[in-house]
């Protein structure tokens, strides 16, 4: 977090954030003339779809709009949302983090194992290890300049190996002991809303402010918009990338640890493929995979949308959860195609 105040005059003339647009708000490209409809679709398309899906589901499926079911969706979306927050930072820098799924699993097992030494250990150990894995990703990508997808694909395997090593080759399922101090803080509700949901709201608020209103956030946009230009303007490119990947690892670790406490044990198979959900959610939320453009609120909407669809699929009898993957994959492609189409139209304007 030392990067926050180190750059002079953040937001002035950075690529992706044309000066004079008020507070250095990163605007997509510079052609604002005919792109307002496209801009609206890019920014709020996922929200519109979410509202439409919710409305249709509420009208056609019995019991969908009950408080219990909505809370169920919200809590189910909470842990993926935490991962998607970290993924948003990474994708805005123009990178990708494929390791979060197995990091999530590793964190769960570590938390369950460490919970025998108390609540602090159950949180501190997985967070430290996962932040370290994220930092390793960041250093390899930023300093050694290796391709993000191959580095994080490798650490995905490495984290899985580490998880197997900790859990006695996946045969040992550590159980979180009863009466652990943080268990009620994860499982209880406040005013009918689960604590994980509240945590997500707080984290996304902090993440949104950090991305929009701090020098660090401006650096993230600058690096994703045009890395060479950012470096020439004195943005600490390597440090910015390393913080993004470290945060991604840390948040995946937090999600995994909380998930383990929530379930009461470190389930070893949890988390496979969750990185794909996170990436889909971020992209569906309007963040560009090319980097330089994106916002955390969109990712939250993306996660909610995917979870609502999953809930509907589970609600319809006779459909296996594998349909969720088909829908998720198709959704990703449709959104990316739409984004490509929109950005091409904008270039022409």
């Amino acid at each position: 977090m030392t990067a926050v105040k180190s750059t002079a005059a953040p937001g002035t003339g950075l690529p992706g954030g044309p000066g004079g647009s008020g507070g250095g708000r990163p605007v997509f490209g510079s052609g604002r003339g005919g792109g307002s409809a496209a801009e609206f679709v890019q920014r709020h398309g996922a929200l519109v779809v979410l509202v439409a899906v919710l409305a249709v589901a509420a009208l056609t499926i019995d019991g969908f709009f009950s408080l219990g079911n909505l809370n169920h969706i919200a809590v189910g979306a909470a842990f993926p949302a935490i991962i998607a927050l970290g993924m948003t930072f990474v994708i805005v820098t123009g990178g990708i983090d494929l390791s979060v799924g197995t990091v999530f699993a590793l964190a769960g097992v570590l938390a369950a194992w460490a919970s025998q030494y108390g609540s602090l250990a159950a949180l501190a150990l997985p967070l430290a290890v996962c932040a370290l894995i994220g930092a390793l990703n960041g250093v390899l990508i930023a300093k050694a300049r290796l391709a993000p997808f191959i580095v994080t694909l490798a650490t995905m395997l490495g984290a899985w190996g580490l998880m197997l090593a900790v859990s006695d080759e996946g045969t040992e399922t550590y159980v979180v002991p009863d009466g652990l101090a943080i268990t009620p803080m994860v499982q209880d509700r406040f005013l009918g809303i689960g604590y994980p949901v509240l945590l997500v709201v707080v984290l996304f608020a902090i993440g949104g402010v950090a991305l929009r209103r701090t020098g660090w956030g401006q650096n993230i946009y600058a690096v994703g918009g045009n890395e060479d230009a950012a470096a020439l303007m004195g943005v600490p490119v390597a440090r910015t990338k390393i913080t993004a990947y470290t945060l991604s690892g840390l948040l995946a670790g937090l999600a995994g640890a909380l998930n383990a406490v929530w379930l009461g044990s470190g389930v070893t198979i949890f988390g496979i493929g969750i990185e794909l959900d996170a990436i889909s959610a971020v992209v569906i939320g309007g963040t560009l995979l090319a980097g330089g453009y994106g916002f955390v609120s969109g990712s939250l909407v993306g996660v909610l949308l995917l979870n609502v669809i999953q809930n509907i699929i589970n609600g319809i009898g006779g459909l296996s959860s594998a349909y969720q993957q088909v829908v998720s994959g198709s959704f990703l492609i449709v959104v990316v195609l739409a984004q490509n189409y929109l950005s091409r139209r904008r270039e022409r304007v």
Partner: protein
Amino acid sequence: MTAIGMPAVRIDRTRVVPWLQEYGVYIGVAALLVFNIALTPHFLSLENFRTQAVQVTPVLILSLGMALVIATGGIDLSVGSVMALAAAMISLYLGYGPVVAVLVALVAGAAAGAVNGALVAFAGVQAIVATLAMMIGGRGLSLVLLPQLDGIRNPAIRELGAGDAFGVPYLVWISAVLVAVVVFVVRRTVFGRRIVAIGGNRRAGELSGLPVRRTLLAVYVLCGLFAAVAGVLATARLQASDPNSIGRLIELSAITAVVVGGTPLQGGRVRIAGTVAGAVLMQLLVSTLIKHDLPPSWTQIAQTAVIIAAVYVARERGRK
């Protein structure tokens, strides 16, 4: 001494790195062979070589298609899911006879590759994203089609997986033929030259009139087709089609084999012999660790280290 030593070290470095990129994979294979011959009991038996050769087939075949895709500067993350799709098709269409089932599986693989290729070549979607979506959706689709493991009792399919001709398993024959075909395509055909040209500089390829989009489409179709072949062979060997676990994380092994073999991820170059050696290296590495009673967790951590080291060494060439 130091005055003489310093430049000598510098010259060494500029020579050693390209040399490592070129021949490192063979040294790795040789080192593992020597280590195993010396320390692993029963390593030098015909039976063991058979086992190793059969076990390497899926990754080897995948890495051939992957090498072509990477040579164009792309990537295909969906190969594992395409294997699962092929496995599901085999099980579903076995009722029409083994030949039809295999053909349908291959067509399904080529179709998945065509979707990838169309997205990359015509819609301009990044290869990572297009194939990532296929990776999610393809696995989901195969699980929708075939929700659980299905044993295969067809004698012809079983023979394909377990039989041999002239003492060499069919699986090894098939992969040898595919290697020969790909080597021929890369070295002797216009198509092969186009692949490398597109990877080297796509814009220049377009300006000089190469059919860039058509070539890209064909490369992804080939990669999907090869993935389907790998899926069919893996199913035949397993004697069961298991869309849930077949080919999970195998794309990583295939990419590693290609990169370790000296094909840079930036594209513009392809080395099939190195790719074959890379696949053998990964197979030997895993089997060495297993034979010395190291748990799977260690094999995965070791693989991670090898991948990162290989990409790190390969990176130097990309800069020049």
